């Protein structure tokens, strides 16, 4: 995890491009993945994440660029000779073989002797808590069990790198959450580098040591889940991961401020505003970094000079642990503010059409590049 030496690179993707008959599915990607890391490729459908994963597995050939795994160029190495295993989105279990035969298949290809093979199959099935299921056929298993067989089958070969294509997409929500933690535990236990493709930002945030956000065949940002959430490289990343309120305005670097026409006062930031004075920039503020309160009866006797807005409650989403308020500003724009429900009470003081005031600290806003 964090202890991994940054020079200890397992996978090196250098200028890789994939052209599907005129469409660039992957457009010049450079990426280094460290040994022992749980890395995620996150993006919407058609962003090229699956194509990139399939190129690592050897199922697609890059149009240009180079893929190195553990220092070895993969250009002429077919899928069946790569030190890589893949967990397919459909799981791709062989329907005519039992669970144990499925898991043993990869070891048979390596000519592992029968006694060792049996031991390793049993060990792998034990790890995914399917020790008793070796003789079943895949169609006799539930979706979650099939997913674990697929994982055992891929891990039993002890690959240097495990590729996971939307590993949890086929599971229902509750099982998905449970499996997320199992997957993370197994990864720590076996110490194999995992690269996962997912469109689910929550899944990527929960599981990954680092992740890459992809869009239109390119990598937009690489970082830890924290980096990406708190310091999104641009507006697309900010809006893709979680929710963010975006304000546009004129930069005022001398005062670390941004003047937004939609707000009654400037946004003042702790960070330096790295933009030319007077240029148009976008600022993002996450809903949980804003505080909401009922407006006082006296009209703004001491309205703050910055980082403040006033509006009316348009909508309330009560989620139990938190409430999300949709606040309508004077110009009709909606700002989302979330509040953790730390006190237990029957009557919510804030209700629809209440006049409210919202404020935030100077470290909350972040500059979003286009």
């Amino acid at each position, binding site marked *: 995890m964090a202890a991994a030496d940054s020079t200890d690179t397992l996978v090196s993707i250098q200028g890789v491009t994939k052209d599907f008959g005129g469409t660039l599915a992957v457009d010049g990607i450079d990426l280094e993945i460290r040994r022992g890391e749980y890395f995620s490729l996150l993006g919407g459908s058609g962003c090229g994440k699956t194509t990139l994963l399939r190129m690592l597995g050897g199922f697609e050939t890059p149009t240009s660029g180079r893929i190195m795994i553990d220092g070895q160029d993969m250009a002429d190495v077919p*899928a069946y000779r790569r030190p890589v295993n893949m967990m397919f989105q*459909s799981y791709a279990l062989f329907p005519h073989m039992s669970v144990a035969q499925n898991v043993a298949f*990869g070891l048979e290809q390596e000519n592992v002797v029968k006694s060792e093979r049996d031991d390793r199959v049993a060990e792998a099935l034990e790890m995914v808590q399917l020790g008793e299921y070796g003789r079943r056929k895949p169609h006799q298993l539930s979706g979650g069990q099939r997913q674990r067989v697929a994982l055992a089958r891929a891990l039993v070969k002890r690959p240097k790198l495990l590729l996971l294509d939307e590993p949890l997409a086929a599971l229902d929500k509750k099982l998905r959450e449970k499996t997320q933690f199992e997957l993370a535990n197994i990864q720590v236990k076996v110490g194999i580098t995992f690269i996962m493709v997912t469109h689910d930002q929550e899944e990527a945030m929960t599981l990954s040591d680092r992740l890459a956000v992809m869009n239109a065949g390119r990598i937009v940002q690489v970082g830890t889940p924290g980096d990406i959430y708190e310091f999104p490289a641009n507006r697309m990343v900010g809006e893709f991961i979680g929710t963010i309120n975006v304000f546009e305005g004129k930069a005022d670097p001398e005062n670390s401020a941004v003047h937004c026409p939609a707000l009654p006062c400037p946004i003042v930031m702790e960070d330096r505003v790295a933009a030319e004075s007077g240029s148009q920039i976008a600022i993002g503020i996450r809903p949980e970094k804003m505080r909401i309160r009922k407006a006082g009866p006296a009209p703004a006797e001491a309205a703050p000079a910055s980082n403040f807005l006033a509006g009316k409650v348009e909508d309330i989403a009560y989620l139990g642990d938190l409430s999300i308020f949709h606040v309508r500003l004077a110009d009709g724009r909606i700002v989302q503010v979330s509040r953790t429900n730390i006190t237990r009470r029957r009557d919510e003081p804030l209700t629809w059409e209440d006049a409210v005031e919202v404020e935030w600290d100077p470290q909350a806003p972040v500059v979003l590049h286009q």
Partner: protein
Amino acid sequence: MTDAAADRVADSPALSTSRGRLIGILIPTAWLLLFFAIPFLFVIKISLSEAAYSVPPVSDFLIWQDGWPVLQATWANFALILDDPLYLQALLGSLRIAAISTLLTLLIGYPMAYAIARAEPGMRTPLLLLVILPFWTSFLIRVYAWSTLLQDQGMINSALMWLGVIDDPMRMLNTEFAVQLGIVYSYLPFMILPLYATLERLDGSLLEAAADLGARPATTFWRVTLPLSLPGMAAGCLLVFIPAAGEFVIPELLGGPDTLMIGKIMWQEFFNNRDWPVASALATILLLLLIVPILLLDRTQSRAEQG
């Protein structure tokens, strides 16, 4: 285990479909009853009757004696068939020829079906069309065309002699080889189509998974593609084997006097000897011989599905 139970609940059919399903079962059942089971009962009836100089040329099955109906069934026709080695030889010969040609059809048809299933999606329909194109011409004409190709002065012999491969014409027409060639040629589409259907449906990610686990392409074929295409192979083999075993036209046009096939014998019994009872008894025996492998196959398949 709880999620396994949930899967089963999700699979349970909606109640509204049960009536549609009933109709779906009734129609083929009625069809089979009307056009197979009832006619076949007539065949069995005739096979248990005696030949007679009448129209139809069989004695009455049921006669009235002193006001009581008496069943006049006889096993004599079956006894005759089992007694005369000619019939048994013809039966076994038919099964042997059908088995060999089915195997040849499979060996030729499998690579073709595989290639079509692996072709570009846009190419598959034209290729399949080419496979069934021969059906546009009459079966009789196509088989007859082979006899002109295979005869001593036919195109094949002339070409081989012109090339200097052989000095004298090879005898091909009126041999068992010609019969098998005719069967393979005529029934190849019936092998290719079900095979194609299975291979085309084969999940490509299974082949990728095999490669991913270290299997070379040949291993992937033997351990994944081939076992998973068994249902298509079985369907194709039955579709070829069953009609081939009772084939009459091909041995008649391409076979020689020594190619004994049961279809030819039945024809002779029916139309040359006008011995309907023996011909019907032959038809009954052939049907029984063909039903046994189907039942066996059905049982192994349902056992395989139960795991």
